[in-house]
Every structure is written in C-alpha cells, then in structure tokens.
C-alpha cells in the first residue's frame, strides 16, 4: 500500500508529539479525539506513557456545569452531529428564530458556526486630506500597490535610525488610539461606536487609520467578538455582558504603520474566557522574550503552540504575524504554530508583529460571506494579542508598549 511505501522513503504524515521524539506517529490519543482536540499523534504507547503527565493537561479543561455543554461534548462523538447542529442553526436562521433579536439577515443560507450574527454597518468614514495616507487609501479596490511590488521577495528590511524613530512615533500613537477605543468599550456599546472613537482619535493625532480601505476594508479598526478570530467588522451590535472583544488598531503616521491589539472582558466573563485570554496574552509575552538577533522567525510558533497546548487550547494557523514599517504587511511572515517554514533570521533593525490567535476548541477557521470576518469552525471562543516589535542589537524593543499601569494588559485593569 502507498502508506507503507511512504514511510520507508517518505516523510511521515504525522510526527510524534513527545518533545524530542521525531519518530513517525501513526497513533492518536482517543481522549483527544473524543474531546475534539486536534492532533495528539504519538509513535508508540510507551512514548505516550512517558509524556502522559504533560499530555493529560490537554484534556483537563474547566468544564461548565451547564448540562447542555456537557451533552454537546458527549454528542461530538457521534458522526453527523456537527452537521445536525449546523442544520438546526441554518433552519433557525432562515425561519427567523435567532439567538439575537435582529431582523438583519444578509446571508440567509449561511450556516454560522457560532451564535454571533452580523449587524448593520454605518457608512464609510472620511479622513481629512491633510493627513498623509498610504497608497491604497485612494485605490478603488484598496489595493496596496507598494506591498505588491515587493511581494515574494523574502529579504527583510533593516531600518535606519531615522526609520526606527518614525516607527517609535507611529507605534506610540497607535497605543494611544487603542487606549481611547478601550475606554469606551462596555456593555451596551456597539462596536461601531468603538470604531468611531478610534477613527477620531487617529485623526486627532495626525494619523490615517490603516485598516480603512485596505483591500477594501470598510472600517478604521477590527473588532472581534467571542468566536471571531480576527478581522471582525465594527457594526451596530451592542457588546453584551460576558463577551470578550478584541480591538485591533493600526495607524499610519508620517509614512509608518504601527499595529497592536488586545482582547478585553466585557462585564463578567466565564472562567474559560478568562483562562483563554490570559493564556493568549502569556503566549505573546513568552514569544516576545525570545526575540533577539540570530533567532529564526520559525521558532516563535513553537513557543506559542507549546504554551497554548499546555492549557488545552489550540493555535489558529491561517493567520500570521508580519513585517511592518512603511508597508502595512510585508516580509517576514511569522506563523504562530509549530513546525512552520517561515523564512528568515531576526536581525537588528527588523520590525514585525507577533499576534497569536488562540482558540478554545478547534484551530480551524472559517470565513463569513463578507470575506473578512474569520470565525472558529466550531463556534467556540478565540482571543488575540499583538504588539509591534523592533529587534535591537541585544534583544527587543516593544514599540507599541503600554506606558502606564506597568504595561499590563487592559483585561487585568
């Protein structure tokens, strides 16, 4: 059979998860399968036993006392259950029975993976022409021609001292703008309102809000609630008690972009949400700690995945960190999962983001028909944190660092 032929000369489809063991893995942990935890491949029962004390932490997640969630977890075991759930959701959607009380239904035949629904959006905002804009701001499709020019070229720019200063200023302003957005985020406040505040705060600081019209994005920041992984479009939905909400701000100031994001608690959130957000933040902090000249970009993912998995969570793989300076998104590409083929080694003068997206359940993502909103495939929660970093001669400078409250994340305030 082809599979045995492959194992003699070919790369194994799966590699044993025990740290340090590189053997081909043809076995899988049945508990993980039952709990719908992806991966968990091992080469042998013995190797698995050796790693058991650490591995079993993946099974141990805070379980809700709610019967429906336990039943849901049990029913995952039955084939067809996922489809059944989706069919019910779709039926609810079409027939107007919805978890949200909005009649707005732009995609009647779309089967949402979770309970979040889109709300109407307000009209596109303008930025005064006196503020310097990136090339895509005025392109009819928002196409970033300058980025396209260097696309594929993997050489990573080393910034001059002047450019580094430009980045420092842009990033400091980005943090200030995010501060403003965070201040208004609360129960009953629509994400559109957060966007309005962010938009105005950027303009006040002579900044163009980078997301606006980037590849046609309609708003000035991304607001990602609950199961939305990233790129959520601000709309008229009011934040609810128990939501987690990520606000992703990027500003363009005097030819440089600064990019950061944080996930906030809205009101009282569940214990699993707390753990998820805390773990995600820790993933970012741990990866920042290893940034220094000589480190390969592909190592970032190993660290993040290790920590996320230790808490029973998964790492979103479809989106990655990116180089940033005069261009919004450019080389290097920084995946957040282990065993990736990221090109490049960190050098003094490199500027880039690390922005891990960590999910409660599956790592898989889906996209809403708006072609932007990324959601978890199972409708469970996802959190994210991001900073823009500069590699120094000896380590790293967190350009978007929060200056007050000892640099702690907002959810800890």
């Amino acid at each position, binding site marked *: 059979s082809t599979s045995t032929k492959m194992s003699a000369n070919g790369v194994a489809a799966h590699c044993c998860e025990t740290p340090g063991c590189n053997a081909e893995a043809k*076995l899988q942990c049945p*508990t993980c399968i039952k709990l719908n935890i992806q991966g968990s491949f*091992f080469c042998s029962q013995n190797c698995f036993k050796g790693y058991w004390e650490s591995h079993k932490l993946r099974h141990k997640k805070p379980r809700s006392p709610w019967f429906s969630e336990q039943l849901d977890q049990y029913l995952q075991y039955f084939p067809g259950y996922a489809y059944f759930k989706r069919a019910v959701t779709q039926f609810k959607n079409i027939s107007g029975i919805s978890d949200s009380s909005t009649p707005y239904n732009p995609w009647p035949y779309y089967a949402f993976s979770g309970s979040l629904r889109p709300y109407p959006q307000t009209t596109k905002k303008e930025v005064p022409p006196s503020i310097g804009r990136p090339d895509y701001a005025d392109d009819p499709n928002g196409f970033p021609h300058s980025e396209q020019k260097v696309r594929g070229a993997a050489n990573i720019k080393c910034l001059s001292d002047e450019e580094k200063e430009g980045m420092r200023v842009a990033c400091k302003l980005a943090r200030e703008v995010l501060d403003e957005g965070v201040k208004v985020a609360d129960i009953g406040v629509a994400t559109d309102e957060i966007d309005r505040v962010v938009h105005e705060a950027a303009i006040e600081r002579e900044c163009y809000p980078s997301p606006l019209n980037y590849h046609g994005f309609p708003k000035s920041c991304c607001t990602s609630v609950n199961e939305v992984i990233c790129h959520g479009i601000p709309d008229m939905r009011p934040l609810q008690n128990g939501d987690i909400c990520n606000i992703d701000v990027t500003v363009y100031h005097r030819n440089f972009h600064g990019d950061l994001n944080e996930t906030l608690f809205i009101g009282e959130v569940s214990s699993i949400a707390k753990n998820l957000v805390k773990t995600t933040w820790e993933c970012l902090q741990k990866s920042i700690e290893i940034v220094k000249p000589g480190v390969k970009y592909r190592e970032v993912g190993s660290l993040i995945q290790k920590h996320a998995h230790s808490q029973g969570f998964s790492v979103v*793989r479809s989106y990655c960190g990116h180089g940033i300076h005069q261009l919004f998104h450019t080389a290097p590409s920084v*995946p957040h999962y*282990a*065993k990736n083929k990221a090109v490049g080694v960190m050098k003094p003068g490199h500027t880039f983001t690390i922005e891990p997206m960590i999910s409660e359940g599956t790592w898989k993502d889906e996209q809403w028909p708006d072609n*932007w909103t990324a959601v978890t495939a199972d409708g469970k929660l996802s959190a994210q944190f991001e900073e823009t970093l500069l590699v120094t001669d000896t380590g790293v400078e967190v350009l978007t660092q929060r200056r007050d409250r000892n640099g702690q994340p907002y959810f800890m305030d």
Partner: protein
Amino acid sequence: MGDEDDIPMLVGEDDEDETIPELVKVEDKPRVPLTILTGYLGAGKTTLLNYILKEQHNKKIAVILNEFGEGSSMEKSLSIGHEGDLFEEWLELRNGCLCCSVKDKGVKAIENLMRKRGKFDYILLETTGLADPGPIASIFWMDRQLGSDLYLDGIITVLDAKYAEKVGRSRVLLAPTSSTFMLLKDSRNLNEKKPEGVVNEAVKQVALADLLIINKTDLVDETQLKAVTDLVSTINGSAHMVYTQRCRIDLNKLLDLHAYDKFDNDLFERSLSTRFFDGASHLDQRVQTVTVEVEGSMSPSSMDYFIDVLLWDRSLTNSAGEPVNIYRMKGIVSMIAESQRFMLQVVQQLYELEPIGYWEIDSPRTCKFVLIGENLEQEKIDDLLRTCVTLSSEFS
C-alpha cells in the same frame, strides 16, 4: 497578576485520576496531489494534458490553466475531466485580507471547490510559457500543520527537443568547438526582473523540474538529442528524464512523484554520476547542478548556519564574486546524536528538514546534497559543508 487560584478548575467525574488510554490508529484523510506543469509554448503541454485526460478517464482530474497571478480577479476557470467528459468549473478567489493569511487565495479556492464538489484524484496546474515555477511551488508547498487537502507532488517541464532553435526570447550561440549549445542570459531585453541579473525562464523551468519530458524526439536526430540531453542534464542533473513523441508517456511516470516529501535515492546516486560526461567542461552554464557528499554529521546550529549562508543571507559566492542563488536543493543529512536520517528539501528560500527512516547501525554517517542554482561551484559548496560537519565515530 493572579495565579492559578484565580481560575477555578471545575473538574468532571472522570478527571480525578485519568488513566492512560490506549492509543488508536490515526485515520488519515488522503490528500490530493497537485502537479505544476510548465514549459514553453509549443513544447507540448496541451498535448500532454489532453493525453492524460483521455487516458485517465476513470479518474477525476482538475486542470487549471495559468498560474494564479497577482491582481484582484475574482474568478478563475478550471476544467474537470471525468468519465471522458470535460466540463468547466469556477474557482472563487475571495479577496479580503490576503496580507496576514498563510494560505494563498488560490489554494483556498481549490479547497473550497473540493469541499463542494468532492475531491479530485489529482490536480494539474498548467503555467504560461514564460512562468517561473519557483514562486508557484512555494505557494503549494505548504506546512503540514495547515492540514491542507492538497500537496505539491512535483514540477513537470515539457521541452521541445529542437529546443535551442525554438526558444523565443533567449539568444543561442553554437559553440564553435563542440556540438553543444550555450544559452546566454538575456539581460538586455528583460531587465525589469530580479536584481541578480536575469536567467532565462526556460532555464529556470528546467532547473526546477522533477520530471523533464523531452518531447518531439521524432523531429531531431541522435546528435541533436544528445546535445539537448547534455545541456539539460548540466542544468538539472537531478530530474527524471523521459523522451516522448507527441507527449505519449507512461502515466505512472507522471504521477506520485512525491518530489517534496520523499527522497529518491536512486535518482540521487544517478545525479552524482551523470554529471561527468564528454563535453561537460565546455559548458559554461550560469545555472548548474552540483552534488556534494561529506562524511560526518551536522548539529542543529551548523545546519542553521548552512541554510542561512546558502538560502537567506546568500553570502556564498563563486570565484568571480557572484552570489550563489539556490533554486532547488535536496539532501540526506546525518544529525549528531540522532539515529534518524533527515531529509532536507529546499525550493527558493523555503526549507524543511524532516526525519525519514533510520541509519543502519554501523553504517558510516554522511551528509549529501544535490543543489541546483546560479553560480554554484563544487569546491566552494564542499568547503562550506566541511565547516558544518563534524566527524564522530559513535553516536547513541
């Protein structure tokens, strides 16, 4: 900042003393191979495609014409051959943020289509005549972790045996002292491209091929055929070569190349020896195949250094000071204190080092590589490798 006590862990009944379960066999969903088909206009790609679709009528084969270009087109057509029928389908290229997205939109479009219409048996991606297959290969050679439904099987280049005369944009000189041909770089006409100086696309297509189909052999005589073979082998000494007329080929040779996840030892051994043939010294090719083999093992940091110098930093040069530019590299490496053999696969700047089988006990540990690229010199690569390798008599 709180500690673990902040977050109470609600424990279910089976959490208390979880016993170690018995592992179960992994159920792998089969992935769909994608082959990149390249070659100059008129070489015979279309003939080959039609032949495949006709001969493999019991398989569901998708043919995509033209690579995914840049720009903001929303749809791309794709032909599916099945049961002798050929029908059109549409790939939705969804725009939106491609920026921080790891998968190319073309990949996502194919995956979405397969989700709706079922999986293909294989996918053939036919590029335009002047395409550089390198970046296309990079798109489809995805991290295993992404769990994509498709994988890159290999690159097939179709050549017209009357090659030298048919090539449009390159300039060709007949070397006065031998019957071999030289292809010159066409820097004066195509200077909009890469800063290192331009290499003719045809050369790149040959260099990156895993399978070279030398077609229209009925139109050339033996001397010409040998000349083309020699030329092409010098550029790429590490590809399978097949001679055809009207692209009639044994289809088993075409499929399951596994060029990126398997190491073909026979092919490697052959490439070690086929470099040495009459007239080799007359060829002054900018793009060549070089093989190196050194006894010993590498450490993770020496491997990092080797990769960095060759692929990323590009600090290695030839004797004339011109920088080495690797297109493709394959190797089997011995790593210190590892009983497994490691396979290195490289295309452009992407590399992967994966365990693949075990060293036989008491067999000598070696590191061997075949490299295809610009400005390669055997001695220079050999020297570099020797600085990265340590000899050791015993490993655990």
